[in-house]
């Protein structure tokens, strides 16, 4: 059962590098498991651990706040590369509920929507502002499809984002898309009869 997502206020964690591919998010050697139970342990493993297997001190993902920052702000073209669903699953396992970028790769985006990780694409200047903030609390509201950011100056931004209406509906209610597909069974049979 996919966890529903309506609205979340939480800290951001910034990984500003562009083109963060799914091999970075979860390296290939973590893909031999036959379930997703511990997949979060491998999230960004090559960034978080050195060649000797020790935690890289000072890496933002190894700071205490990383596990308390449910909103990942990634550089442009986030999630490119392999179609491995292990990538959004690893981010969820690590503690993220939202990924924000100025562009998110197609397959990653669809996998994220299917697994309950909310992918949010903002305009480049809004995205740039979040990268600059580096930390701090924001609100992601899926009901209103907007990101709410309060600057230290007191200025408040309300940035709308677009989302596929069906994906939004499923995320808001934690619905399994397979159930929707299963309801279409008569149409599928009719199609097959026509082949």
């Amino acid at each position, binding site marked *: 059962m996919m966890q529903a997502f309506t609205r979340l206020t939480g800290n951001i964690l910034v990984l500003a590098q562009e083109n963060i591919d799914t091999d970075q998010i979860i390296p290939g050697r973590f893909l031999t*498991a036959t379930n997703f139970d511990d997949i979060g342990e491998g999230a960004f493993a090559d960034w978080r651990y050195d060649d000797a297997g020790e935690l890289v001190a000072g890496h933002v993902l190894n700071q205490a706040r990383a596990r308390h920052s449910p909103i990942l702000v990634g550089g442009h073209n986030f999630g490119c590369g392999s179609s491995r669903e292990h990538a959004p699953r690893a981010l969820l396992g690590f503690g993220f509920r939202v990924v924000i970028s100025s562009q998110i790769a197609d397959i990653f985006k669809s996998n994220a929507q299917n697994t309950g990780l909310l992918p949010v694409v903002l305009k480049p200047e809004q995205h740039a502002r979040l990268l600059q903030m580096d930390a701090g609390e924001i609100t992601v509201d899926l009901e209103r499809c907007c990101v709410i950011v309060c600057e230290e100056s007191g200025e408040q931004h309300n940035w709308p984002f677009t989302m596929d209406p069906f994906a939004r509906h499923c995320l808001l209610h934690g619905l399994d898309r397979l159930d929707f597909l299963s309801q279409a069974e008569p149409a599928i049979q009719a199609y097959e009869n026509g082949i």
Partner: protein
Amino acid sequence: MVSAPESQPQSLFDKLWNTHLVQAQSETTPAILYIDLHLVHEVTSPQGFDLLREKDIAVRCPERTLATLDHSTPTLPPDKDGRRPYITEQAQRQVQTLRNNCKEFGIELHDWDSPSRGVVHVMGPELGATQPGMTIVCGDSHTSTHGAFGALAFGIGTTEVGHVLARQCLLQNKPGSMRINLDGRLGNGVTAKDLALYIINHIGMNGGTGHVIEYTGEAVRGLDMESRMTLCNMTIEAGARAGMIAPDQVTIDYLRGRRKVPQGEAFEAAAEKWLKLASDPSAYFDHEISLDASAIRPTITYGTDPGMSVAIGEMVPVAVNASQQKALEYMDLSSGQSLAERKVDIVFVGSCTNGRISDLRATAKVLRGRKIAPHVRMLVVPGSENIRRQAELEGLDKVVRAAGAEWRLAGCSMCLAMNGDIVPPGKTAVSTSNRNFAGRQGKGSRTMLASPETAAACAVMGRVAGVSEVESTQEGE
């Protein structure tokens, strides 16, 4: 995006999309797209099968599902007791899980005992399971390979693997369309891999995001099927959903007589239909690009994304942003440096990109009568067991071994390095695979992507080099 009515001129992509609609897209729901062929491998399927068990659903169309073992499988032969050298027990369990799932749900699996077992995107076309006009999916981004046949083929996630197993359909919004027209002919010694790298360099590693790309033009028509597969395979590296090439006589000739295509008159009837799939002359595309293929030279990547490439002999370009600078640091290169100075430690020939018989022949042609440099380790990994046997019939294995390289069993191997075939930290690999991401071939690995010809030349010279250098400095047979 709403599909054009069928009376209007349609692209190849439009035709495939429209004929596979079980239910059209609406304002609130995606389209339901029927899937003709579902390819399955051990890595991205176990949780999909679990979904079926959870919901007590059978595999809807086992006859439209085809499975193989490729990613987690060792490429070294079994020991004298018949034990395969799996990297971990978990990898072996993953393979066993697919075996169990295929047995439970009645799916054709190409296991160790199958003479056709191979990398999923090599095996499908080889068996003729991949056919023009089909929708094809697999839990693997390089499913784009099958677009070479005029199929709509794309990678999906594991949850969607479950959807297709259960309902033979996918929920999809129609992507945008892009046509890349490749004028002119590829020069001597220039391959489909060079063409693909050139295109990605030109449009960027995210240049195709949200789109299905159709490749057209003289250069594409001039490619054989294996080269077309290489080109469509790399389409995902430009971020595109799928790559496609309209079927023509080259496609038909490749497929005729293959095991899973219709035989005899039925084949000729199918072929006639397949030839009509080509885009109508005035079909609409959201984006169109024209490139001059005759200007392309043998190419190699120098960074950590497939868009960062240069022609062999060119200097490392200036980094234009922080990401490129970081990539250069990772690769231990600097702007303006000559790549010819770069020592190569490992050479990998194989993968769904370049592990076919023509790739092995091209490799052997460079290696014949020569030795790889003493400090280089080279792996040659056929894309399927059929290809391995064909290559051995032609004596290519002997050429490879005589040159000092390793000849392996079929599999994905060092392309994603999850089976134990890895590039050690800090080492430089020239690889015929598809991704040069940091750590892709093993933590700390530095990958340079190139064609099989170039990879073999680098192995012989022990540094980054083109085939012409090998020919001018070393006598072959």
